[in-house]
């Protein structure tokens, strides 16, 4: 079953993370200030460092989540783009199955395959689109094997030999 997601759920999650990060920071300050002065200096410093690190890690996790959510439009957009991947924008027929299968291929080749498939599917009528998607999905495993084989061979090809 797919987990339920929505703007409300995301908002609650974000608020929770912010609250935890804030709490961590206050605890760190508290540890540094409120710990009884009779405690040794190194205890106070250690406690402050521990709580401070906890607060920092919460903040870092929160920042990373925000960055990721800003970057994520669809599955494909998480990955970087090359010149060969196809131009961005325009009406595109997004097929989740195609996007998933494209990840079986080497990165650049998979993106090109997906971009080309999407550019073609958008021009097809709905009746023909299903058959076209099926044909892409059916040919994908063999194509992935071919592309990976080619990539491995390219890497295995010996480079220029050193003298001596």
């Amino acid at each position, binding site marked *: 079953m797919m987990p339920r997601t929505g703007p409300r759920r995301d908002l609650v999650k974000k608020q929770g993370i912010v609250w935890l990060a804030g709490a961590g920071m206050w605890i760190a300050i508290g540890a540094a200030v409120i710990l009884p002065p009779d405690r040794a200096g190194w205890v106070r410093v250690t406690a402050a460092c521990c709580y401070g690190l906890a607060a920092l890690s919460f903040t870092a996790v929160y920042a990373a989540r925000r960055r990721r959510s800003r970057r994520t439009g669809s599955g494909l957009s998480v990955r970087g783009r090359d010149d060969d991947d196809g131009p961005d924008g*325009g009406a595109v027929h997004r097929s989740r199955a195609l996007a998933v299968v494209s990840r079986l291929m080497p990165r650049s080749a998979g993106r090109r395959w997906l971009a080309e498939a999407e*550019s073609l599917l958008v021009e097809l009528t709905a009746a023909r689109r299903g058959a*076209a998607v099926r044909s892409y999905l059916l040919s*994908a495993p*063999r*194509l992935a094997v071919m592309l990976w084989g080619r990539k491995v061979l390219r890497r295995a090809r010996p480079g220029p030999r050193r003298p001596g």
Partner: protein
Amino acid sequence: MAPRLTVQVQLVLQALLQDPATEMYGLELSEETGLQPGTAYPILLRLEHEGWVASRWEDIDPRAEKRPARRYYRLTAGGAVQASAALAGARRPKGTALRRLAEGGGTA
């Protein structure tokens, strides 16, 4: 090394050889050959790898055109010569094979 001349490869080459200077994109090729686009793509990729075919992304503004750019393919000069020679020496696709392809869309 020349690509293996299966019936599907011959169909793609024939379509491209109709006018070697003209570029064709996936859907055009698919309609011309009767192959499903998913079948034509690996063939084009193989031909491109062999240097018989060159490809490029269409230079348009997808937002203005309201569609994504197409990938255009055309035979290279050397590819056109080699493809003509290979097709001349190859067995012609039989009627039954072509009928089967037209019915099923073909498989790579």
